């Protein structure tokens, strides 16, 4: 039997009984135990969309080809594979087909050569088309995009194509390598459920990241995961963000009075999921109160339409303000600190774009401080360096920007242990 462990940790479990509203943070950790029996594996419908512009020449393209061949070996005979390349134009190299004629497919992959510029939109459109040719019921559809360059003039079209695909249940993994690609575009493309983006800092990581992504798709623990958050009268959800496996805001909707919902998408078993919730708590009298009723609804692969659910509540004690300490839970503080660093750097780039360089620098420096205190010393130094560069030259470096944007979200290199 599959089991979900749902744990809610508040920033403080004893709150002062005050006459004013107050803020409470809650870390919500979801972990999956599929138990002894292996979860049924859903067939994968995969399309790689690969940038083959001239800057990919050499080790990058070599590694990509090798990674594509390894992925092919990971697929079963009933799974679908396609490969599209793009430079100034796009081309279907391997049309959507069951992963059977492996030698022939590998020959086609090995013939790919690098040349020309980067025009992503047509490549994405062809990739989506290949996936749609192989649509199977109850399959996992995934487009894996890799680019090392900046596409010009068709960014809007790229996002449109991505949204259309995502609305049809196609998840997108957008991977950037080197320092020239457009991190804002990839972040926007991946800002939907079942999608993610990652910064590949070295060509030698390509194979590892490609195969890890396929393995994640092969081990889905649950699909269509939704959270439902019920609060007491007059309480509010201020925000909900994902903090693990990577940091990013989650759209949350008040469905009926004091009940909020958010969609989390599919859940690969290897991902520990954690969310950070900010609640505005109304004044409540001394005593014990249930501040939060949370339920998780999802389908498990193989069980068709049966919806499973899991519920958890958060009791909190209200006391006389003089008896309440102002200490906060260190784990909640850690993730909040990293979330705040992510928000600060995001608003710093925005300020920089508006020409407010001092404001941008201040925010970056505070982001550095938060990262420093959260133990992310190396990233804190990068942030500090870019803050200085920004103040002096009016511009951050392309690589520094990527390291900060993706680093604060936990989207660079190795997945963190903790």
């Amino acid at each position, binding site marked *: 039997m599959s089991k979900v462990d749902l744990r809610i940790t508040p920033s403080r479990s004893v709150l002062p009984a005050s006459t004013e509203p*107050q803020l409470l943070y809650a870390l919500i950790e979801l972990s999956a135990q599929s138990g002894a029996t292996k979860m049924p594996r859903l067939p994968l419908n995969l399309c790689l969309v690969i940038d083959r512009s001239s800057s990919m020449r050499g080790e990058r393209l070599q590694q990509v080809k090798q990674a594509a061949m390894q992925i092919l070996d990971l697929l079963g005979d009933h799974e679908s594979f396609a490969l599209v390349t793009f430079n100034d134009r796009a081309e279907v190299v391997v049309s959507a087909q069951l992963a059977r004629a492996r030698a022939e497919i590998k020959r086609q992959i090995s013939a790919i050569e690098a040349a020309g510029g980067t025009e992503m939109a047509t490549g994405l459109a062809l990739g989506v088309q290949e996936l749609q040719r192989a649509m199977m019921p109850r399959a996992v559809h995934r487009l894996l995009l890799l680019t090392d360059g900046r596409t010009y003039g068709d960014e809007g079209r790229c996002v449109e194509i991505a949204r259309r695909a995502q609305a049809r249940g196609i998840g997108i993994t957008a991977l950037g390598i080197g320092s020239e690609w457009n991190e804002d575009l990839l972040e926007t493309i991946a800002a939907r459920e079942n999608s993610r983006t990652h910064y590949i800092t070295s060509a030698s990581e390509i194979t590892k990241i490609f195969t890890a992504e396929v393995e994640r798709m092969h081990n889905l623990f649950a699909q269509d995961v939704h959270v439902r958050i019920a609060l007491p009268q007059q309480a509010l959800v201020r925000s909900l963000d994902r903090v693990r496996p990577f940091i990013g805001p989650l759209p949350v909707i008040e469905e009926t009075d004091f009940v909020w919902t958010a969609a989390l998408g599919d859940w690969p078993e290897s991902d520990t999921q954690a969310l950070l919730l900010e609640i505005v708590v109304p004044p409540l009298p001394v005593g014990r109160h249930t501040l939060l009723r949370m339920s998780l609804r999802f389908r498990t692969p193989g069980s068709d339409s049966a919806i499973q659910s899991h519920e958890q509540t958060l009791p909190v004690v209200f006391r006389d303000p003089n008896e309440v300490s102002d200490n906060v839970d260190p784990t909640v503080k850690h993730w909040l600190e990293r979330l705040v660093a992510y928000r600060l750097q995001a608003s710093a780039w925005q300020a920089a774009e508006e020409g407010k360089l001092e404001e941008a*620098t201040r925010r970056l420096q505070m982001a550095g401080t938060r990262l420093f205190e959260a133990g992310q010393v190396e990233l804190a130094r990068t942030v500090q360096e870019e803050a200085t560069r920004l103040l002096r030259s009016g511009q951050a470096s392309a690589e520094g920007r990527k390291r900060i944007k993706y680093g604060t979200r936990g989207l660079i290199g190795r997945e963190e242990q903790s």
Partner: protein
Amino acid sequence: MIICNYCQAQQLDGTIFCTVCGASLIHTQPQRQTTASLNRAASEAAQLVEDEATVLPAPAIATTGPAIVLVVLSSGRRIELPAAPELIIGRKDQQRGFFPDVDFSLDGGYDAGVSRRHARIVRFDNGYMLEDLGSSNGTFLNRQRVPPGQPVQLHHGDEVQFGMLLARFEVSS
């Protein structure tokens, strides 16, 4: 309601990091929400800024040699340093009655990991030396860590970092 010490923004009780500037608000005491207290808070803040804006008043002794300045890069604040044989750099601690010659409290020193007794600048011959006083988060001269207790020479235009707080050392002759 609490008021951020760093940017004076009003925040809900229980807020851990200021939503405006990101500074830590843990242990910031709630204020009663009356206009009187708001005014008081505002005037206190203004007063603090005044107190802190200048370092120790320049001593009456005749200044010999060039004037030295520390420029805090985030705020642009120029701290003109008095001519003294030794200048302690850190963060003031009123409770313990500790007042350094250069106080970074209002430059976000606490958040930037500046220790109370962080470093000192010592006058020698016609130059200046920088010494880390065993600070928790280190002192860096032009991005090189300064080992505690081992003074290094300072030059005009050097970049000095206390914890995460970045400043430039200037000598104006």
